[in-house]
């Protein structure tokens, strides 16, 4: 293959992105049906970032997410039954029904939490990177956050400290051009986020977040740099969420949410990361219509199983309200 990426990895990218897409489409439908009540922030349209980044990591590497982290959980290899069950707030969920969609965890695959306070996981990932240097382990940490988080003071505190101490951390900003309802140009004095790295004496790159291969290769390079002890990298991935800030609604102008121009959304749908990779794989002969059909069928089956598992699972027992506050 071109790009020096194996066919296996390219197919894994395709399958992972499709799984995230299909999983979240099902979540959106179940929200509309009233079966899911926890607030769900969907990443449909942004799948390439979580997918490309997590494929550049080892299982032992740590990732931290945010309020919009179904994709990070799936891309790092988390069990989607436990994810769906958590979104249903059931006892069998990854956070045992205490977290809901916004609080996901899967320590077994290195996802140590997705705190939904904007920017909160950025210093925490720096801390887990510090931990690697103190322990002498080779693990790299990643924090995923949105463009909105770059307005938080803690973002700058974290960049400074990570670069100062040359910590093995990669900052991945998923810039979808909207900080909840506010377009970035209305909240940032300079909308070039990658450039902010300069002030902290660390590399910052702006890439196409809808090109999974570009994400993968950029993160690979940043991870290598981090593992070699050369410090952090800020990667700004330009992308767009097809749905609104929260829930299945697309927030286009003219609807009650009235935020984004329809033409803007349509133009980004043209830049769909999944279609882009699919076209490339078909052209390269890495994917046939038959294999594509098999992959879609497999994903359909897995998501259906996850939904059924969540539906059938029990809610937490009342006494569980008082459990898990402290380690005893």
């Amino acid at each position, binding site marked *: 293959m071109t790009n020096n990426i194996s066919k296996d990895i390219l197919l894994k990218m395709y399958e992972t992105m499709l799984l995230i897409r299909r999983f979240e489409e099902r979540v959106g439908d179940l929200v509309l049906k009233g079966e899911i009540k926890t607030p769900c922030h969907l990443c449909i349209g942004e799948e390439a970032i979580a997918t490309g980044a997590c494929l550049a990591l080892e299982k032992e590497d740590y990732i931290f997410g945010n309020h919009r982290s179904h994709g990070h959980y799936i891309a790092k290899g988390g069990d989607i039954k436990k994810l769906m069950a958590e979104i249903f707030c059931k006892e069998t969920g990854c956070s045992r029904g*205490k977290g809901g969609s916004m609080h996901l*965890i899967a320590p077994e695959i290195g996802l140590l939490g997705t*705190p939904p306070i904007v920017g*909160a996981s950025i210093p925490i990932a720096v*801390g887990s990177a510090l931990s*690697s240097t103190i322990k002498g382990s080779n693990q790299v940490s990643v924090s995923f956050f949105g463009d909105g988080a770059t307005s938080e003071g*803690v973002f700058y505190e974290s960049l400074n*400290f990570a670069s100062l101490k040359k910590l093995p951390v990669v900052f991945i900003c998923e810039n979808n051009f909207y900080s909840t309802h506010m377009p970035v140009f209305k909240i940032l004095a300079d909308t070039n986020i990658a450039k902010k790295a300069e002030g902290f004496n660390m590399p910052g790159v702006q890439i196409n977040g809808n090109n999974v291969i570009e994400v993968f290769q950029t993160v690979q390079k940043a991870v290598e740099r981090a593992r070699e002890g050369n410090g952090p990298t800020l990667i700004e991935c330009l992308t767009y969420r097809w749905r609104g800030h929260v829930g299945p609604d697309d927030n286009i102008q003219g609807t009650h949410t009235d935020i984004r121009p329809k033409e803007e959304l349509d133009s980004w749908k043209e830049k769909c990361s999944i279609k882009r990779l699919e076209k490339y794989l078909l052209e390269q002969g890495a994917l046939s219509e038959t294999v594509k059909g098999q992959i879609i069928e497999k994903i359909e089956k897995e998501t259906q199983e996850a939904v059924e598992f969540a539906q059938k699972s029990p809610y937490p027992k009342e006494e569980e309200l008082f459990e*898990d506050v402290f*380690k005893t």
Partner: protein
Amino acid sequence: MRKITYAQAINEATKQLMERDHQVFIIGQGCTSPWYVGNTTNGLFEKFGEKRVIDTPISENGMSGVALGAALTGLKPILIFPRMDFMYLAFDQIINQAANWRYMFGGKVNAPLVIRGIINRGGEQAAQHSQALHSMFAHVPGLKVVMPATPYDAKGLLISAVEDGNPVVYIDDNWLYKEEAEVPEEIYRVPIGKGAIKKKGKDVTIVAISYMVKQAAEAAEDLEKEGISAEVIDLRSIKPLDEEIILESVKKTKRLVIADVGWQTGGIASEIANKVYSKLYKELKSEIEIVALPDVPAPASQVLEEKFYPNKNNIIEAVKKNN
């Protein structure tokens, strides 16, 4: 037994914990500077190096997140705030994140983080370098709060806090740093959530916190001369609260005075008063008295400071009011 100061006791506990367990490290603004943290970290940088004694930029929220991240990945950080007042800047990481982490993620990971805040009052430092925030932290589920009043407890509670495996806010007081007492050389523990009877008595119970324990003990000595026998309880832990030791004492004395280093309104003293009143209201022989800071910010002028900070005389007055 040899005697050491309160500050030396904190220093010794930290040193022994770091020697014994490579997972323990300290991080915080000024943690290599005696100007900031008294003698509590003297010699640690020289002994353990910059990897485990990390003096930081002035980024309270960021550094608290860093300490939490290290705790979530198997280390046992002691995060130091040289003035408690600066902790307001880190409320997101301490409260939203550290305190909630275990619960909101279904008990899957622990956050073994000790957050050491120093009360640093007096000397005309005024509103932003004088505060005691224990009651605010005690309000939050997921945090434990301890406040040693003696060199012995300063060492034993720090060891317990680091071994606890949960976020523990450990609050020491600069006004106590020079207090000297017998402290065992070896590692030992003072249990979190257990108060101690500092002096036995039968006429009134004085529950005291941190620096007010010393004031209460002196007040009790003076009261003894006047024929009033006061029982002094050193609370040691604010959360969990040792209700039993308080209730047992008040059942016997029927009178209660609470001496706190924090503000009046909404503080731990009110919480204690509520617990005692709701369980023993039929047995009480007088109103419960609270000796605490008035509801104003800390002033600068020495004259105003003297009025602002309660002392043993305020405790004596409170005892006599209802005796």
